[in-house]
């Protein structure tokens, strides 16, 4: 059993501090919307497909509304107005018409306003119902099958990243047949900076495959078939991250994905996306995930690929507590918050296994109801694949011993290339062995209350608490400005996508948010 050597009062205090820091940001979020949120609303309302030069219709519409400076009322409102003004017209043209001269649009009576909103709410409710029924299908399939290798075993998570969705399917199937529980389709490097979601099946990506709704559908279909064949449920995951967090959350929900990488700060730190934009987007995306029972995976593992894993361990803990608060504020239950962390301490040092165990147990126990997502060593991986494999084996051992919920399996070729089919095979076979061999180890052993592990937890937590004091005092934005997380500094006005952040009007209308926030 994972053991926690940190005083409960300190933990409580840390949570308070994280909440106070996050609440300040939440107040900002509650006053704003973004182009991405509004595009998602349109997609929820059934706007799909692309216009000229492949641009998604939702993008074209929201762009018009933003240019017309009327987006602060909400895209749903304008879609309602447009369809009412041009009944029978196709929505894009209808929107374009309204947006062309919004000031000329004949005002509606109060009753009409109410009626329009009621109509949109009704449509939204039925859209949500449809979504829910799709989620229910997913859940039903899952209930009918075995999940994971055995009760308590981490789900074996592997990535496919050929750039070509059809190759991805091929390799995902092979991985599933060898014991994978979760297939993550890694995105092409550029995608998180695109302010739209590409459309259709894609076959050319660098370092990954584009996240598109069609690609999601193709992969989910393949995994459904494979799940049935293997009598074991195969989870699918992708990224709700970058400039299109909420849109991808919606597409993923619709296509019955099970998880999404989704972090309140990752885009800010690692993609230089504007922080206001990211904070707003993460909120709406998490509202969707929460309602669609999608497990999110936070990205704290990334901090210790840039910063030193041993020195910066406390930033992982502090950030997780912040991510937790943000997720709670977005209405997510603990069950769906998959906190990310990783096995990244420099293997040249001593007692790294103990230090990794300390962290893994602490994260496990700080969030007892959440499915922890454990990442393997990456930063100190070497070209010597045999050593690299040995190193991964130790991470497998920590994962199963401390009952991490989801384990991304390390690849022996991490330092060289995106995983090949054989790399995944090797990783899955060894992880299977390690899980079996150490199945009940966690329940057998206990750590000395005065030992290296206990002291390490206390030291890390104290530093995390200290950092949270600072964040609560100076504010999240200031802390990020001081490179407190992932050794990377960002400013409130810097980064990409700020132009897509819009202050909500007093008459802002977002029927989905109303439903998801439980206000309608």
């Amino acid at each position, binding site marked *: 059993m994972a053991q926690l050597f940190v005083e409960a009062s300190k933990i409580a205090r840390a949570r308070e501090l994280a909440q106070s820091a996050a609440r300040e940001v939440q107040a900002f979020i509650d006053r704003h919307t973004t182009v991405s949120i509004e595009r998602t609303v349109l997609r929820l309302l059934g706007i799909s497909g692309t216009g000229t030069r492949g641009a998604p219709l939702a993008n074209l519409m929201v762009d018009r509304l933003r240019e017309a400076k009327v987006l602060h009322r909400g895209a749903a409102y304008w879609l309602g107005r447009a369809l009412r003004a041009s009944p029978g017209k196709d929505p894009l043209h209808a929107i374009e018409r309204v947006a062309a001269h919004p000031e000329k649009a004949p005002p509606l009576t109060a009753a009409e306003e109410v009626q329009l909103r009621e109509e949109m709410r009704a449509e939204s409710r039925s859209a949500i119902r449809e979504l829910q029924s799709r989620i229910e299908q997913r859940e039903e399939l899952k209930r009918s099958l075995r999940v994971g290798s055995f009760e308590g075993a981490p789900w074996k998570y592997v990535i496919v990243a*050929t*750039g070509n969705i059809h*190759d991805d399917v*091929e390799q995902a*199937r*092979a*991985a599933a*047949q*060898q014991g994978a529980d979760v297939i993550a389709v890694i995105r092409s*490097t*550029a995608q998180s*900076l695109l302010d739209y979601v590409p459309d259709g099946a894609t076959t050319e990506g*660098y*370092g990954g495959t584009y996240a598109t709704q069609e690609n999601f559908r193709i992969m989910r279909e393949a995994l459904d078939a494979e799940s049935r064949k293997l009598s074991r449920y195969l989870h699918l995951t992708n990224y709700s991250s970058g400039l299109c967090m909420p849109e991808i959350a919606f597409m993923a929900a619709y296509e019955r994905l099970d998880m999404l990488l989704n972090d309140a700060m990752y885009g800010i730190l*690692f*993609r*230089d996306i504007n922080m206001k934009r990211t904070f707003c987007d993460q909120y709406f995306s998490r509202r969707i995930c929460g309602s669609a029972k999608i497990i999110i995976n936070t990205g704290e593992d990334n901090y210790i*690929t*840039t910063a030193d894993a041993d020195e910066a361990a406390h930033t992982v803990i502090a950030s997780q507590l912040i991510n937790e608060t943000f997720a709670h504020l977005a209405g997510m239950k603990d069950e769906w918050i998959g906190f990310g962390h990783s096995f990244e301490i420099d293997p040249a040092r001593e007692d790294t296994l103990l230090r990794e165990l300390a962290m893994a147990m602490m994260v496990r126990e700080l969030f007892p109801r959440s499915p922890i997502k454990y990442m393997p060593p990456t930063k100190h991986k070497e070209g010597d694949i045999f050593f690299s494999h040995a190193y991964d084996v130790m991470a497998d051992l920590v994962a199963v011993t401390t009952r991490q919920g989801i384990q991304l399996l390390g690849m022996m070729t991490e*330092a*060289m*290339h*995106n995983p*090949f*089919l*054989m790399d995944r*095979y*090797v990783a899955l076979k060894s992880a299977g062995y390690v899980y079996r061999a150490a199945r009940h180890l966690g329940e057998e052993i206990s750590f000395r209350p005065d030992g290296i592990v206990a002291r390490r937890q206390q030291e890390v937590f104290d530093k995390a608490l200290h950092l949270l004091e600072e964040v609560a005092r100076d504010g999240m934005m200031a802390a990020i400005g001081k490179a407190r997380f992932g050794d990377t500094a960002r400013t409130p006005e810097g980064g990409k996508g700020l132009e897509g952040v819009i202050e909500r009007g007093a008459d802002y209308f977002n029927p989905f948010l109303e439903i998801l926030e439980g206000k309608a």
Partner: protein
Amino acid sequence: MKQPIRPYGDRKDDGVIQLSFVLPVPASEKAKEAAATVAKKLGLSHVLVACMEKAGEDYSFCVVYGRTHMQLDYAAIEVPTVVHRKHGFDELNEVIQRDVGRRIVVVGACIGTDSHTTGIDAIMNMKGFAGDYGLERYPLFRAINLGSQVEPAALVARAKAENADAVLVSKVVTQRDVHKEDARALLDIARAEGIFEKTLFLFGGPRVDHKTALELGFDAGFGPGTKPSDVANYIYYRLLERAGKAPPPQQTAHGTQDATVAGTGEKLGDTL
């Protein structure tokens, strides 16, 4: 004098090598035979298929041992190496002061959609790498690090504006040679902007080596394990050389030619 060598397994010249690969056929005795055939076609004898296992319904994973009969003349292998003496931190600042007489300006970035900044940061930021100070720390360097995901045009523009002595380019993602594409694009823009001739262009990253960099048109390439002081010394010597003050340093050594192994759709020959 010739120095013939072969891989060494258990005894001199036994030529033993280990292979592993996946064949796109279901695991079977036939797949095992096919694995042996692959090894034989590579010219190996004494082929032993140590393992042929199911790696999914349609794939088999194979580990093979065999002996190559090829022999290599080790004496004939040439790798260029740097021969100039490397200055320490203080000393380098002094000689720059003496020989260049001003701060050297360098502008760096991780270009394209690549956001792996740790490499360029290791070279440029204060902290440096493996205990070796970064360029920012050198009083005689003005180091401007633009960070990640910088468009080639933006990097060139800044270098031009700063009248930079050297441009430092980092690329880490190499799938399907995207690093080379981006690197070429950068030099094209530099040429168009007229700074190509007068500026040093350094290319770095885990898959970069001197030879590749030269082929792409850079002045030098720097691979894994590069220290900031290597880069600082290199730039100093090249500037001297351009000023006609010292003998040109010999080419730096950064390993063998790079190559990515990821799949492409390209047609390959079908015989061996």
